[in-house]
């Protein structure tokens, strides 16, 4: 954990983990005995409304596309060969629900070859129908442009990582420049968008330039790689409060997803290995590669990490990740890091009031009056917070909570407020 330095006259500067120019290969996690794939669709447990197409005992092959309901577009791509052992509901944070498809892994791996028939012609339809689940996570707005009010005119490839201690995207930039180059070509061809920009750290400029996209440099200090700040600093366009980058016609894709896209078309098979960092209890970070759907338990046992009661397991980095409640939680296509913290080292929040120390003011990249905002949020005055103190300008970097002397969970308050206001506005719209 990065502690406040003795000299705290200036605001702390936390830099992203910079990858070496010749990084070692990521450590490979063995194929698990059982994998779990999370389908982004609520599971109808009793089969009352819809009848599931997948059931226990169905055989699946590696790379096979699995859909649960006939009339639905949502699918996952199996990362292993074996038989379906269970389909069950699964709940994520902020009330999101998934259908979890568990697969018992067979000894011999068989590859599903259906995708290879589509490789010749990289169209948007192919990407949409086969590659929404590739490692690195392809955002759905890329292949469903008709849902947007403003058409996408710019694609930004993140050759930088979203959070501290993560190197997955940088690794793709350095080691998979050919796949990225192919991926960029496919993106151009499939979407018809010519303006593709690669955001990269300065020391990786040369590797990033091989992609064929226009390279722009991102500052090495957190939180410069968050989409809103990339928009402001690299594209010179400020996202209005409450809007997101897509509303301005800019889509963000991770470098790993572009590399996966290129690999899929190069090899005729959908990639199933996801790269991510394991951040151990001592704070060291190791890049690993594992099949999507591997339970985190397998990753900890590979590294001989003992997981104790009351420890904290985080999917994502230390500033923006999400903690999970079970060792069975699977690696997902957008999992950039898995962090484990010992229960002795946890920085816990408190219910102390804001003492107005002002530490959050200079550190906020969005220049929000956090001290005033948190006073309103604590007493559930969400609408006033949005109207008067720029709730929607927040880009959710977490730095205010990081420096808070009173240890108020500020970012949690902010996200809760946004979520509640969103629910209220949906309720109002549907009541009309």
């Amino acid at each position, binding site marked *: 954990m990065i*502690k406040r330095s003795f000299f705290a006259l200036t605001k702390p500067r936390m830099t992203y983990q910079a990858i070496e120019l010749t990084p070692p290969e990521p450590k490979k996690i063995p194929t698990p005995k059982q994998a779990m794939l999370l389908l982004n669709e609520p599971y109808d447990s009793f089969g009352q409304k819809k009848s599931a197409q997948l059931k226990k005992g169905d055989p699946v092959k590696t790379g096979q596309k699995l859909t649960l309901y006939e009339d639905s577009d949502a699918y996952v791509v199996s990362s292993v060969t074996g038989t379906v052992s269970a389909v069950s509901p699964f709940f994520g944070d902020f009330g999101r629900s998934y259908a979890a498809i568990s697969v018992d892994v067979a000894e011999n791996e068989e590859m599903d070859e259906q995708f290879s028939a589509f490789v010749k012609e990289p169209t948007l339809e192919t990407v949409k129908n086969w590659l929404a689940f590739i490692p690195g996570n392809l955002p759905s707005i890329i292949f469903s442009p008709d849902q947007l009010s403003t058409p996408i005119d710019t694609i930004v490839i993140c050759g930088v990582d979203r959070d501290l201690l993560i190197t997955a995207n940088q690794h793709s930039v350095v080691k998979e420049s050919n796949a990225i180059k192919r991926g960029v070509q496919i993106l151009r061809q499939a979407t018809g968008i010519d303006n593709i920009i690669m955001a990269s750290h300065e020391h990786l400029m040369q590797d990033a330039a091989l992609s064929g996209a226009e390279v722009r440099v991102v500052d090495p200090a957190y939180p410069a790689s968050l989409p809103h700040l990339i928009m402001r600093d690299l594209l010179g366009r400020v996202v209005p409060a409450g809007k997101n980058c897509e509303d301005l016609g800019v889509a963000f894709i991770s470098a790993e997803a572009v590399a996966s896209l290129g690999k899929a078309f190069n090899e005729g098979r959908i990639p199933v290995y996801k790269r991510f960092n394991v951040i151990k209890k001592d704070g060291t970070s190791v890049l690993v590669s594992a099949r999507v759907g591997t339970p985190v338990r397998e990753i900890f046992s590979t590294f001989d990490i003992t997981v104790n009661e009351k420890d904290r397991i985080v999917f994502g980095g230390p500033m923006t990740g999400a903690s999970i409640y079970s060792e069975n939680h699977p690696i997902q296509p957008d999992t950039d890091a898995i962090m484990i913290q010992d229960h002795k080292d946890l920085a816990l929040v408190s219910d102390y009031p804001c003492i107005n120390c002002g530490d959050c003011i200079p550190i906020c990249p969005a220049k929000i009056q956090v001290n005033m905002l948190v006073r309103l949020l604590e007493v559930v005055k969400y609408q006033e917070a949005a109207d008067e103190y720029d709730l929607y300008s927040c880009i959710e970097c977490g730095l205010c909570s990081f420096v808070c002397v009173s240890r108020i969970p500020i970012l949690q308050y902010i996200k809760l407020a946004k979520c509640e206001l969103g629910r209220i506005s949906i309720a109002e719209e549907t009541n009309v």
Partner: protein
Amino acid sequence: MFEQKKFTVSHAPFWHNGSSVSARSYNIILATLPAVLFGFFTYGMPAVGVVALSVSSAVAWEFAYNKISKRSPSIGDGNAAMIGLLFAMLLPATSPWWLVVTGTFVAVIVGKQIYGGIGGNPFNPVLVGLAIVTLSWKDFFDFNEVLVNYDFSYPMAYPLASLKHFGVFAISDFKPAALLMGQQSGGIGAVFGLGLILGGIYLIIRGCIRWEISVSFLAGVWVTALLFNMADPAKYAGPTFHLLTGYTLIGAFFLATEDSSSPVNFIPMLIYGAFAGIMTILIRNIGAYVDGVVFAILIANLINPLVDKIRPKALGKVV
């Protein structure tokens, strides 16, 4: 079914820089030590008694209020002890016990707790306490009278009182270097200028106070005093004298910088500090009181909510 381990789940971020309210309070207490210890050596056991009583009674008032209001005890954060210590630093060493206890009652209960405790007070609690006791029993704050039994090798006239009552020629005995080294009469912890400056620099380096407020306060005092001095050198003292006497230095580093009652944005901090500095000299030079720091900072506290509205435009704000 295997035994499921229970993990800690919470919201991002999962790191914290380790700062805390208690560390902040104790750092401020640490920074006062040079000045307080100097006061102990100068004024002896009476000073020790006043400081000890002030700190302990402030903590006791806070604890009593916690009990009455049925809240969890907040004395562990060190804020009450800090209020008691700063209050004692402003008092003369001969203050009677009831004055100290009344003062800390006003500071902790009236100045802080009735507004909801730490972070909620619109005025600096120490100064609220001091203002009330000064106005109520002003004879106990006539430093010339209450410190009359102390006899040192340097003049024991209270510098600001000499200036107020006898004019500029009466202060020719006070040399800046001597004032800086604490050779003057005044509050227990307010006379040792060098110690206060060292403590202030320590707090600024550690990030416990906002340097903008201290610097602009001192600049406000210095510039305003200089302007008066230039207008009429025979009537108004020079800026250095004003910087080194009375409560100016303790005000700049320990009182004006109180978290809850001061602004947090850059430009408002400069306005707030400069305003308090200017008011200090206005009160000293043309006002009724001998020292203006207490009321100047309280008035600046009053304008704090307004000036803190001057803020940078948030990212993506649509006007």
